[in-house]
């Protein structure tokens, strides 16, 4: 049954692989911050 499949998948994700799910969330956060840092244009220094 597809619904049972989704149910068991959710139970598996949040019981056995809870640490991996948390790490994936942390990875997404770090990637977002990293992308923003890479793309951000630094103010150009005025060479005197």
């Amino acid at each position, binding site marked *: 049954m597809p619904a049972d*499949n989704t149910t*068991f*998948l959710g139970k*598996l*994700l949040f019981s056995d*692989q809870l640490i*991996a799910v948390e790490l*994936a*969330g942390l*990875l*997404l956060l*770090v*990637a*977002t911050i*990293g*992308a*923003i840092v*890479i*793309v951000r244009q630094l103010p150009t220094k005025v060479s005197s």
Partner: protein
Amino acid sequence: MLDLKIYLILGAILFCIGLIGFVSRRNMITMFLSAELMLQGVAINFLAFSRFRGNLQGQSFVLFILSVAACEAAIALALIVILYRAKNSLDVSKWQDLREEDLEPNEDQEILLVDSYHIQPMPTLPVAGHRPAKEEDASHV
């Protein structure tokens, strides 16, 4: 019930499309999308095997693959943005100075559109047998 073979063929087709697109295009965004296509072909293989074996590990692994692919997309698009700012072009061949030291640059070659068969001279037969004696030579004899 669909056969397992169909899913595997779909995954292989996606992987081949991604591979061909990756090696034949120079646009950075197109190459990146082709790499993503290869990744999803592999993910479809994971899903098919996990579904037909009744094993949930593969499906959960594909969820992690997708989250990592999302991170990769964010970083790759950021890199594409700064590369575009540096050269004002998305062409990867503008970055050939990043190659190794002992490699020659890969330069474009002009494709000859005119058929080269009509440019070449017609073939001539080689001279066979003795050359006939000229009149001066014949007077000496």
